[in-house]
């Protein structure tokens, strides 16, 4: 485990916002996009010259790497997107038809709630929300009775971005498949940090972002769509293929990839995935569990701080959410940065239903999300800051 303090020298700027976007990135992630733009910048799938082919080869390699990470046999089923929100929109709006019923969980992010809200308000689909308990775990008993004859899709947030709580993915997928319902998994908070075997679990669609646990640049992400699922395309446009026709090509992955891809960003994502492969995702997970335990145990002893989410770090991703009695969460975040140089996130974290379940709506929480590069001395400094802030209340 590295130590952010040492890594950043005397520049005290401690980053505890990895659930929003990971930082720092591996050195290779910074360098790859520049090298790609300088040396091999061709438009993939278009011109047929050397640079185009080099970029085509890069995208092929990234697709293979992503497929390998999620144990997907056919890389053509991996579609590159702007981020997880983009992937979720492509999946949700591509699979749902008028009259369909959708199930999703209360810990979902707005990237799920808002597309569903729009479809529901427009009278296209009906939606039921699976409630979650005070720790953020979806209510399995509720789910077992929630399937209807017209239920088409169950959306599962693999881990809450508010409490980190990991959903019982395998069990929920089994239940959905028992009713002939497809499952879309939002892996925004887990891809790269927690191993996901998409084909063994039987995940039908998996949305991920490149700039969090996968350690890549923003503007990268993707969607896995299993063989046999046909998504209506959200947008159509240039692919460099079948240019004589005004019909977008049917073959995957191009069917869901209109327009020039972010090849320089994907060059960075490839290096992020390589870093994860070389480090070992199990090692990353073990490190993050250890650092989360250290953080949680240090904070839970501070009088007047209320923690949300599971105590057991094995049950959640690497974050801790809390409130301080009689203190505004936003103000706590402001003092953490202005007085201590600690960067975190405060508020609703784009997940309003989760906060309603935790009775932290609309005030929200302070969320600390360390990462693989966070050291225990960073946490010691943070805990000291929290004790001082608490003494002000």
């Amino acid at each position: 485990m590295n130590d952010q303090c040492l890594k950043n020298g005397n520049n005290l700027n401690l980053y505890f916002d990895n659930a929003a976007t990971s930082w720092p990135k591996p050195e290779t992630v910074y360098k790859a996009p520049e090298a790609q733009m300088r040396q091999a910048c061709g438009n993939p799938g278009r011109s047929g010259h050397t640079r185009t082919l080099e970029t085509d080869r890069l995208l092929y390699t990234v697709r293979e790497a992503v497929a390998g990470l999620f144990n997907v046999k056919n890389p053509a089923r991996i579609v590159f997107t702007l981020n997880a929100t983009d992937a979720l929109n492509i999946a949700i709006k591509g699979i749902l038809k008028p009259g369909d019923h959708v199930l999703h969980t209360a810990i979902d992010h707005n990237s799920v709630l808002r597309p569903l809200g729009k479809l529901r308000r427009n009278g296209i689909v009906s939606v039921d929300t699976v409630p979650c308990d005070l720790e953020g775990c979806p209510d399995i008993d509720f789910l077992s009775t929630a399937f209807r004859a017209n239920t088409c899709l169950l959306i599962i947030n693999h881990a809450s971005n508010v409490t980190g709580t990991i959903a019982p993915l395998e069990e929920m997928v089994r239940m959905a498949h028992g009713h002939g319902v497809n499952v879309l998994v939002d892996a925004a908070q887990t891809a790269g940090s927690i191993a996901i075997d998409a084909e063994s679990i039987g995940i039908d669609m998996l949305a991920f972002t490149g700039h969090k646990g996968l350690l890549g640049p923003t503007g990268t992400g993707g969607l896995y769509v299993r063989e046999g699922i046909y998504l209506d395309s959200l947008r159509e446009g240039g692919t460099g293929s079948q240019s004589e026709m005004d019909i977008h090509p049917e073959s995957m992955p191009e069917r869901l990839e209109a327009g020039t891809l972010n090849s320089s960003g994907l060059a960075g994502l490839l290096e992020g995935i390589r870093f994860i492969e070389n480090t070992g995702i199990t090692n990353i997970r073990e490190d993050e569990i250890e650092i989360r335990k250290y953080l949680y145990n240090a904070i839970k002893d501070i009088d007047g701080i209320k923690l949300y989410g599971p105590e057991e770090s094995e049950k959640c991703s690497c974050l801790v959410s809390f409130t301080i009695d009689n203190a505004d969460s936003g103000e706590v975040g402001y003092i953490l940065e202005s007085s201590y140089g600690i960067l975190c996130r405060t508020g609703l974290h784009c997940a309003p239903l989760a906060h309603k379940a935790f009775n932290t709506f609309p005030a929200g929480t302070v969320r600390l999300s360390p990462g693989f590069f966070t050291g225990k001395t960073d946490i010691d400094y943070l805990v000291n800051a929290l004790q001082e802030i608490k003494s002000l209340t």
Partner: protein
Amino acid sequence: MAYSCYITFPTTYFAIRAESLLKKEAYSFKMVPVPRSISSSCGTALRCECKDLSALKEFLLQNELELEAYYKLEEIGLRVPNVEELHFDE
């Protein structure tokens, strides 16, 4: 008269996958822009000697690649060549 043969693909993904798999074998081939006299979904085609076409095709199909079509073209420089689309009994 000299000829070359071409394999075309439904998407760039399969063209690059073909290249990636064939590079590991001893086949002689080149990835080239699709000649305008050929109709193809993907802008990149595989060019090979016609005597190798059948073996290349079999290898790629065994590896579950999606192939679009096969062509035989006269090698006559910049002039538009005569094109023969080849069909195989599957």
